[in-house]
């Protein structure tokens, strides 16, 4: 077992563990923090796969910007206390069971996945580098890139509509 494999398992464990903590934390602020840890773990995976650009972007955009926004909203609403009333226990249980079953079913379904046995190369290749990604983004992917500006425009207008008193 080489170092990258050890890293893989460690990061995976971290991601899963902190993801579970996101769900089970009573305090929203704790959830946010656990989620940030999950994002770090995922960024770690990206870097492990030599997708440095995505790893960094993930940290900046998700862990940095988005989660801060979340935190900000939670603070704004003064929700940092464990205010959430107990949801119906049965419903909660049903949720967990349903999610668990879905996991089982999907895993079972994908056990015979046609890509089984193929390898996702770790630590090699340069497609994850910003140069290559940038080139592709502004040549082959220029249309979606431009289109996403429309998306942002609409989000902007939306924020205006919603936010304006």
């Amino acid at each position, binding site marked *: 077992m080489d170092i990258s494999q050890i890293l893989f398992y460690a990061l995976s464990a971290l991601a899963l563990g902190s993801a579970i903590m996101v769900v089970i934390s009573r305090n929203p602020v704790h959830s946010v923090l656990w989620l940030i840890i999950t994002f770090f773990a995922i960024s770690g995976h990206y870097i492990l796969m030599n997708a440095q650009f995505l790893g960094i*972007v993930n940290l900046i955009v998700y862990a940095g910007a988005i989660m801060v926004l979340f935190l900000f909203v939670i603070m704004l609403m003064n929700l940092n206390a464990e205010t959430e009333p107990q949801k119906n226990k049965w419903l909660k249980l049903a949720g967990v069971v349903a999610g668990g079953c879905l996991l089982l079913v999907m895993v079972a379904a994908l056990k015979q996945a046609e890509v089984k046995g193929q390898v996702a190369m770790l630590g090699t290749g340069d497609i994850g580098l910003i140069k290559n990604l940038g080139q592709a983004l502004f040549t082959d992917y220029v249309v979606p890139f431009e289109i996403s500006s429309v998306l942002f425009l609409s989000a902007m207008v939306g924020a205006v509509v919603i936010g304006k008193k």
Partner: protein
Amino acid sequence: MLIERYIYLAIALFCIGIVGVLARRNAIIIFMCIELMLNAVNLLLVAFSKMHYAVGVAKNATAGIDGQLFVFFIMVVAAAEVSVGLAIIVMMYRNTHSVDVNFLNRLKH
């Protein structure tokens, strides 16, 4: 690293996200769990990207790159969604002083 491990990992994260959506009542946390789901997808996409790279690199030096680009777009969209989503949640909070989705039951049947 064998691809199925990434598949299982991603699905597990994905399902944890789903369980979070199912089990929590706080709109913000539900939203966070959805973000978790998206991240699971991102992770899997990158893994597939690397897998296809391994297969196709001989013919094409940038094989598998579209997977990573897709991740980029997902992040873009997620950012936009978050801005709108949080705006809605805040608006809701302003009116009801709660982010508990179970209070959202004026519309039913």
